[in-house]
Structure formats: C-alpha cells, structure tokens
C-alpha cells in the first residue's frame, strides 16, 4: 500500500527532525532516497533548491513533492499529514502544559532565559538570510564588490517603508518581488 508507506515514512521524518530546517535533511534523504528510492539524489537536490525559493518548511515541501510524484495529490495529502501528525500531537501537549504551568516561578525563570536567547537566534537567522540575499545564495565571492546592488536597494527601501508606514509585511515582500522581478529582468 503506497499511501501507508508514504504516511509511515513521513511520520518518521516529522517525529525525529528536531531543530527543523536543514537539520532534517539527512533524515529526509534516508527515508525518501535511500530506504524507498522514491527520489534520486538529483531530484532530492532539486527539492532543496525549490524549498529555498518557495514558502513552507522543507520537510512539508519534500512530503508534498514526493507524495505528488509517487501517488498524485492524494499521495501529497497523505505524506503531508504524516509529516505534521507527530509534531501536532507533541506540540499540543506542550501547549496544554505551557498554559497550565507558565506562571510557576521556575517555569517563568526558564522562559525568561529563553526569550532573549530566541531574539539572538532570530537575529542570527536574519543575518544568514541577508547574507544569502546580498551574495546570491553564497555563489558569489564574499567581497564588497560582489554585493547584489538590486537586493541591497530593495532591502534598504523595504526597511524604510516598513518603519515609516508600518504596512502589512506581505505588501513589502510582494512589492519587493514585483520591483525586483522587473529590475533583475531588465538589467
């Protein structure tokens, strides 16, 4: 039963990929490429490229992509469901515990230590994304001269608009997409 196999393979991906994102890649590869042979390494590399370009977690993207290629849209739904189910159950338990105990002294203490830590983590993720955008995904050499000037201009303009007019961030991202699409295509 291909649906059951898909479901089971992606339950394992969902359950054991702690840390998210690229930490999950070896696990996904072992299921999808090595164990079941649903994708070859070339296709697996392509799905990573697609994931960098499109929204959505890489595990979900791979689940949908693999599911569609193996068993059409129902396959995509089953694989995605498998991928999400373990985190849904586990995080729901955490959510219930959090709600119940968040006001305890030690829980507040731990959370008080986690909040600034998370801000630091977000900043470092932000830095990685900015570097990726300014130096074309790390393909160019890291020097001032090789900065993508269009990206730099878009980021500067974006920050200006976000801070000045506080619009829906979706508008900033879409606007940068349209203007960037035009500029890159013309230059």
């Amino acid at each position: 039963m291909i649906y059951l196999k898909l479901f089971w393979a992606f339950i394992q991906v969902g359950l054991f990929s702690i840390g998210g994102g690229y930490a999950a890649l070896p696990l996904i590869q072992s299921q999808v490429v090595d164990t079941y042979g649903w994708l070859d390494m070339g296709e697996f590399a392509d799905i990573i490229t697609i994931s960098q370009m499109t929204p959505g977690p890489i595990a979900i993207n791979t689940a949908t992509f693999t599911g569609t290629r193996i068993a059409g849209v129902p396959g995509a739904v089953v694989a995605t469901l498998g991928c999400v189910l373990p985190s849904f159950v586990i995080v729901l338990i955490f959510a219930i515990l959090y709600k119940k105990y968040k006001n305890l002294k030690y829980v507040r203490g731990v959370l008080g230590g986690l909040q600034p830590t998370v801000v630091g983590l977000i900043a470092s993720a932000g830095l990685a994304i900015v570097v990726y955008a300014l130096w074309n995904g790390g393909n160019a050499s890291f020097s001032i001269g090789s900065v993508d000037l269009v990206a730099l201009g878009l980021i500067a303009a974006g920050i200006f608009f976000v801070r000045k007019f506080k619009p829906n961030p979706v508008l900033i991202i879409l606007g940068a997409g349209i203007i960037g699409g035009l500029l890159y295509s013309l230059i």
Partner: protein
Amino acid sequence: MFAWEAAGLKHHAGFYLKLFWYTFQLSAFTVGGGYVIVPMMKKQFVEKLGWLEEDEMLNFTAIAQSSPGAIAVNASVLLGYHLAGIPGALLTVFATVLPPLILLSVIAVGYKAFIGNEIIRNILTGMQAGVCAVIIDVVIDMSRTMVKTKRIVPVLLMLGAFIAVAVFNVNVMYVILTGALVGFISAMRKPGKEDKK
C-alpha cells in the same frame, strides 16, 4: 481561559475566518526558513491584531524550536491552541500546511520549468530581499526592547546566542538549553518571587 476570551473576541465564524486567513498569510510568506515566521507573527498577531503578547510569542518560538518538526508548524499549533483551544490548533495547522501543499503539488509536475524560469527566479529573489527588510526591522525592535529592560543577563544571553550561532556555528539546541539553564538559575537566586496567579 483562552486568549480570545480574554480579548473579548467572540467565538464566531468571523474569528475563525480571520485566524485562518492570517495564519495562511503567515505560512505563504515564510520564505527562507522557519524563523521568518517570527517577524511575520509579530507584525500581524502582536502589532496589528493584538491577539498575542510579544513575550508569549518568544516563548512559543522557543518551544517550537525545541519540539520535533518544522518551526512554522509547531509555532502555529501553539498559536492556535493559545487563541482558541484544540479547534484553533487544528485550524492553524491546516492553514499553515495549505500554501506549501498547494504550491508544491503544482510545482512537482513541471518543476524543471519552474526552477529554470528566469522571471520566476527574479521575482523570488526580489521577495527574498523583502523578507530581509521585514526581519531586520523586527530584530531592531526586539533587541531594542531587550536592551531597554536594562537587565544585564538577558542582554548577555541575546548577544551570546547571536554570536554562538552566527559566528561559531554552535548547534541551536545547545544554545536553547543554555538559555533555559541560565533562566532556571536566576529564578533560584530570586527568593520571594512566588508563583503568579
């Protein structure tokens, strides 16, 4: 009591529709990794809708990072449960999974053409710059808030976490554990501050 009750939100169809729509947007524009969901969540749910406190959002992010699975999915479960219990969590997970599910099942068929298309690539590169702007803006605000507390331990934790990951490539799990441990110890050293009701 759930947050929607506290905020006086009616448990009606309009509320669920809004929750679905904003979570859908959150997911549809989280390009470039799980943490991008945080700036989006802050802009929409904290600042615009006022359904969530910034502290709470950071707690969710820490729990989401420490649980198995994708950060964006995990954060949406926490958000949904916080706002409307288990039905809320089901709704937000559905809304989070839907954009990549639709997009990828379409792309999977002719994906070579998608990757190779110059114009699509250009638009997506532009969108990435937009994401950078949003994340820089939010990082400025959040780190300023931390500095304004004028407490030395949180500021050190923030800088330490940033340097550990950005410069020394330390595994994020260790960074989180360190933050939790420091928080626990500082709670131990604060006698008298008892459990809050």
